[in-house]
């Protein structure tokens, strides 16, 4: 049985339906990310779990107990906000102790827990400082410690890294994941950053227009997107218009080139289909094992250090591909004619 169970959640603001029939079962200790563009309803789902928004329909259970009608202060949920939301009038230690004090935890136990939490987030000596005396990364660590101190049943993270600079973001996300694993706390993480979601989640829920388009492990979401939206939202994607020649053999024509997708396709012969291909699935030149070969003209070459990003035109489609930089193999010149190859199984057939 799921530890956090969201069943058929709906939320409307006036005539606008922000969340539609959202169902998700989160296991105990699992780290699930809600990923989607702005306005997709991910934060609204999180706020409904926290109790800040009442669902129009549906139910929320934590450990089997219905919490849909409980006020936020009785749900035992820890939350970390994008804007840190540290209490400016309290020191770091007082911030961390706030939830424990509200619970009526004895002073000695409270102080021990605060020390433990500050050590956990790597700021054991900053207990006496005020929030304005900390950097953004430090403030968000304190916010995490404050949320974790009262031992919540579920931890909610509402874009906690968005306000930080790139370097801090990367290091803090690893720390958050390590602490979450350490404590085994069930966590929901809201983000619009796909790299962030893929790097730290057990499972990702890709949301669009208030619905969950796909729920799955990062590997599955990236490599086997269930819908066109997921395919296009997660990672970079090349799309190609193709004509289906033989549905049973999975043979299609892209311009003058005939490719085999290595699997049967359930579309009528002669129909136009949209294929998608990740940049890293495309190779420059004909590589053994990559039997789908496409003649291309190099349009643009971007040197990014360890990686070279090439844009090439294939039968009216513009494709991107990434290759590793090698000192003994200079990148192709723009305008040159080359061959690109890919494995048939790497092509993703997008729904219409």
């Amino acid at each position: 049985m799921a530890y956090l169970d969201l069943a058929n959640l709906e939320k409307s603001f006036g005539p606008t339906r922000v969340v539609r029939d959202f169902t998700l079962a989160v296991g105990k200790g699992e780290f699930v990310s809600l990923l989607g563009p702005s306005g997709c309803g991910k934060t609204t789902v999180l706020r409904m779990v926290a109790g800040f928004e009442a669902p129009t329909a549906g139910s929320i259970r934590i450990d089997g107990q219905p919490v849909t009608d409980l006020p936020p202060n009785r749900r035992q949920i820890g939350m970390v906000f994008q804007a840190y939301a540290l209490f400016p009038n309290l020191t770091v230690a007082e911030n961390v102790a706030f939830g424990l004090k509200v619970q009526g935890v004895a002073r000695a136990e409270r102080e021990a827990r605060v020390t433990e939490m500050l050590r956990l987030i790597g700021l054991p000596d900053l207990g006496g400082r005020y929030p304005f005396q900390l950097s953004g990364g430090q403030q968000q660590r304190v916010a995490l410690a404050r949320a974790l101190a009262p031992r919540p049943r579920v931890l909610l993270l509402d874009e906690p890294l968005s306000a930080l600079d790139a370097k801090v973001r990367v290091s803090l996300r690893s720390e958050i994941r390590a602490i979450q694993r350490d404590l085994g706390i069930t966590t929901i993480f809201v983000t619009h950053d796909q790299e962030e979601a893929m790097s730290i989640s057990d499972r990702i829920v890709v949301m669009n227009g208030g619905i969950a388009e796909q729920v799955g492990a990062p590997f599955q979401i990236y490599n086997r997107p269930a819908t066109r939206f997921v395919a296009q939202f997660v990672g970079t994607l090349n799309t190609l218009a193709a004509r289906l020649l033989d549905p049973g053999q999975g043979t299609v024509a892209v311009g003058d080139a005939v490719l085999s997708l290595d699997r049967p396709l359930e579309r009528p012969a002669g129909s136009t289909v949209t294929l998608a291909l990740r940049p890293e699935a495309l190779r420059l030149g004909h590589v053994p094992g990559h039997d789908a070969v496409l003649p291309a003209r190099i349009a643009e070459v971007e040197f990014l250090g360890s990686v070279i990003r090439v844009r090439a035109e294939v039968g009216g489609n513009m494709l991107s591909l990434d290759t590793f930089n090698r000192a003994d193999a200079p990148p192709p010149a723009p305008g040159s004619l080359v061959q690109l190859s890919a494995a048939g199984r790497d092509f993703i057939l997008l729904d219409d």
Partner: protein
Amino acid sequence: MIRSTRLWSWIAFALGAAYFLLPLAGMFEFSLRARRGEYSFQAYRNVLGDPQFLATFGYSVLMAGFTIVLGVLIVAPTAFWVRLKLPGLRPVIEFVTLLPLVIPPIVIVFGYIRLYNTSSWLPLTGSALGTDFLLMCGYATLSLPYMYRAVDTGLRTIDIRTLTEAAQSLGAGWITILGRLILPNVFVAVMSGAFLTFAIVIGEYVFAALLNRPAFGPYMVWMGSNKAYEPAALAVIAFSVTWACMALIQLATRFQKFTKASC
């Protein structure tokens, strides 16, 4: 170029200062002339030695204290709730809080007397304590526009929605949120509202005179119509009290540990 701009700034400042300070200096100079042919603080000695001054001033200070508490208790939760949950109601609340500036105090006090006289359902004017309560309510009404704006401006400077939600997720109820988080964070704003209230209560005449309470306002008017130099001395004292209040606001801001001002 920069030097001439700075010169003009100083000239403008000097003109402004002269416009405001010269009448004060004149009044101060006049207050020192109680003794013929010499400057002295005789008028101040007369005022400060008058037992009625101490009684009325003490009464008004006490009433100001109670009025500030009542004002904060009414305004802080209202402004907080409107900002948090009912932002659409803000124009209505702002309009209501402006009404005391439009409705003359005499109308309010006659309303009070009519509603709460000794033959009414709630005869508050029948006892000194009841009348004091009415007076306090009247003062709170008069100071509403200033107190509300001060607190509302303070609330604007903090993200009350996120702070409230953060506190709620940690298990805090409304009283804890207001008392331990919101009020301390708008302390300076509450203090400026409180000092404005103090200044209003100290100088208020109509309410105190018509409710027949021994406040400082009626005493100043009585003094003005019966003495020559003492009213000027009293005005200087009143100004000093107001300026002391403003200095206290500045001090309150400076000594707040959790703002950058203390660095």
